[in-house]
């Protein structure tokens, strides 16, 4: 799975996710990536989110939407909300990762697997590419 989230200089956010799914999948199995609110979500009132990992757990957790609503309704910070969603996914027996960005440009990521391909760039000159912790 691959994904991208962005906040532009006008303070708008967007999310994109694309995937081939699981090896040897059958029966027309669809994971969380194309399910709006599960693996992909964007809302200028909160954040943009893209997920990767065990799709069934992210669907049950409604991961992307849950992250945004934690911020919007509970006032959680971006990183705290992201960590809480990953904990919820874990409680459902899943592992994976999330990337997220707020309209302010604040960014967050996290994962419960040994590694996650990830990268970040900003207008402030930040640029990071990482795989492991």
């Amino acid at each position, binding site marked *: 799975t691959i994904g991208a989230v962005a906040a532009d200089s006008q303070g*708008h956010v967007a999310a*994109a996710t*694309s995937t081939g799914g699981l090896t040897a999948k059958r029966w027309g199995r669809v994971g969380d*990536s194309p399910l709006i609110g599960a*693996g992909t979500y964007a809302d200028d009132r909160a954040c943009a989110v893209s997920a990767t990992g065990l799709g069934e757990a992210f669907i049950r957790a409604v991961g992307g939407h849950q992250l945004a609503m934690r911020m919007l309704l509970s006032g959680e910070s971006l990183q705290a909300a992201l960590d809480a969603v990953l904990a919820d996914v874990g409680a459902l027996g899943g592992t994976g990762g999330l990337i997220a960005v707020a309209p302010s*440009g604040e960014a967050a990521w996290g994962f419960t697997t*040994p590694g996650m391909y990830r990268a970040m760039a900003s207008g402030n000159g930040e640029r990071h590419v990482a*795989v492991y912790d």
Partner: protein
Amino acid sequence: MSWTLVIHGGCGAMRPANLSPEVEERSRAGLDNALDAGRAILAEGGSAIDAVEAAARVLEDDPCFNAGRGSVLTADGHVELDAAIMDGRDRNAGAVAGLRTTRSPIRAARAAMERSPHILLTYDQADVFAREQGLEQVDNDYFITPERKAQLDKVLAAGGNFDADIKYG
């Protein structure tokens, strides 16, 4: 206000058996390329929705990642592609599932968002929609790499179950 772009290329148990140093280097280069594609848009004052599409398209074309070319295979040896895109300005969204011939699923998702009254389009008719929108079509073989075929063979040889130790994707 400044801009920010964050991308991912999947997660999992990557070391040591599943990832050679060469593959890791190619993957890091792919992430760099995707960052550049999105950065070029955002640094010029472009929109977040254009930036995430541009970054995703680069990663879909990179065989190091499980999306587009380089995707994992279904049990019957095909590639089926899913994608979604969402705009935070108005919560408009588009998604596709089960594509087999559309080269860039994220472009199909955006076309669904902008040029259809629907959110989620699926399987052969989603490819029909993409084709009608003028999006590039390819044979399913285009998406298949020898590494992914070998992974499928290994999973099938182990019974085809989604064992955590042999799961790819």
